């Protein structure tokens, strides 16, 4: 059986092809203003890599903020539902899945079958999502991918306003004026962001194992700060940004079985 999961995120669309219990390929495209087009592109890329065509796929499940715009999809699943499924598939002991994407952060509590029990979400506010780091990197004039490694060089952390990107930016500018070092400012940015995400997770309660997915999970600076704030180990899969798409592909398997 072949299924496809497509995660239509605010910044990028990810697709995963799943065959007989295994991931066989992945595809990705930038969302832009036409998520439907991006979805076609991401799925097309994944299919090409798997040497398959659309007609070979038994079921396509879409997720992500623009899931309703997915072309050719047979069903949809909530982002939280997809996170839970993917988390437990990747790490069977996972019970708390944290997903930090470009514009939203979520924490999901689930059971051993990857069924969601409860969740909290930070939406419609850029603080606490990848957009926060992006905006701060701009203010600091550091490339986004350099932020994490840079922050690890810091010996101590300054503090900045984590409640709002706009105010955080002003704080970063005043730290620059005070001639604080870039590594220390970078670390302050990650600490602020991790603070917000961890307080969100605390509202849900921390059930180990804790898994971190979403694009921001690739940032070593954020991961280091989050571990420090949560006080527990955090497991990260190899392709954290594909977790949503993987979860959707897993849900698609169940939906085929039901039919």
């Amino acid at each position, binding site marked *: 059986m072949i299924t496809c999961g497509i995660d239509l995120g605010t910044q990028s669309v990810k697709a995963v092809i799943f065959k007989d219990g295994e991931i066989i390929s992945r595809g990705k495209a930038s969302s832009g203003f036409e998520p439907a087009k991006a979805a076609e592109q991401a799925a097309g890329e994944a299919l090409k890599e798997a040497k398959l065509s659309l007609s070979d796929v038994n079921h396509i499940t879409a997720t992500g903020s623009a899931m309703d715009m997915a072309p050719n999809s047979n069903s949809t699943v909530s982002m939280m539902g997809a996170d839970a499924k993917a988390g437990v598939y990747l790490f069977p002991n996972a019970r708390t899945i944290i997903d930090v994407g470009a514009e939203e952060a979520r924490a999901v509590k689930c059971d051993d079958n990857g069924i969601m029990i409860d969740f909290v979400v930070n939406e*419609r506010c850029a603080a606490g999502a990848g957009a926060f780091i992006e905006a701060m990197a701009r203010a600091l004039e550091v490339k986004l991918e350099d932020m994490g490694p840079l922050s690890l060089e810091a010996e101590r952390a300054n503090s900045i306003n984590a*409640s*709002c990107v*706009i105010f955080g930016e002003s704080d970063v500018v005043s730290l620059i004026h005070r001639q604080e070092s870039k590594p220390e400012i970078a670390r302050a940015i990650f600490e602020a962001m991790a603070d917000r995400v961890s307080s969100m997770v605390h509202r849900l309660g921390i059930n180990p194992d804790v898994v971190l997915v979403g694009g921001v999970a690739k940032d070593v600076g954020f991961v280091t700060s989050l571990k420090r704030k949560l006080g527990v180990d955090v497991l990260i899969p190899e392709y954290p940004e594909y977790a949503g798409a993987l979860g959707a592909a897993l849900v698609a398997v169940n939906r085929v079985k039901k039919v």
Partner: protein
Amino acid sequence: MNETPKKEDVEYWRWQEYHRVFSEKKWKKKDILTAGIDVGSVGSKAAIMIDGEVYSWGVMRTGSNSPDSAKKVLDWAMEKTGLRLDDFKYIVGTGYGRVNVPMAKKAITEIACHAKGANYIWGPSVRTVLDVGGQDIKAIRCDETGRVTAFLMNDKCAAGTGRGMEVFADLLKIPIEKIGEVSLKVEEEPPPVSCTCVAFAKTEAMGLLRKGWSKEKVLAAYTHAMAIRMGNLIKRVGLKREFVITGGQSKNIGIVTRIEKQLGVQCLPMPDWRKNGLDAMIAGAIGAALFGKALYEKEQKS
């Protein structure tokens, strides 16, 4: 080679800095000369009073250094008055940077100062003050003497603050002093934007423009959402007439009109400094100078 500024270089967020002296008034050494300096996150304001009556003031952008901004704005308020720093009997600092006003003898919170200043500008009938500053929004209730009885504040989010509006003015390339007017140029009020986060405003606004919305309509939808946020804060603190708006956003007619509509109450008319009136933006500085007078008198008694 002389380069003329490119169109993209226009600073749409920039608002007018100015100073004003009521030159018909004269001061004498024995008068109780006090000054209030309100160092906000975006704007710095200084007001000078003779025996509790406004004499002059200055309004300018806050720089990266609070003590410097405090000094500059007081110097500006003192320009063409012949006053020197040691003529002041008492100086009070207020605002976000109030602890960093070196010449001030005392720092007082901007909440107390705005209520006091609103009482001075509009009179003893004022009971509710909405202060929309650069970095926070405060809904304040006060009594007939301008004493604070309750307040609520949002300082966690830039949506609706002056800083947020500056970002929006830049984004839509509309001068900040015009955005209120422009936001009212719609035939029908569009629904408020669902996402008020300033950081996401860019994506949201671009999306709406792509859908064929006019700049005016996008601005109206955003201003509408901001006004709802402010209106809700006032409802939570409890609206009681008379109602007034202070701070930089009091000049945004788009915000003022929409809040009035949402609350079903008119706010008292704005003074206009261009027409020999005061300025709602300096309410905090006026309040601080008034506190300065009271503190000086108390000192003399003891």
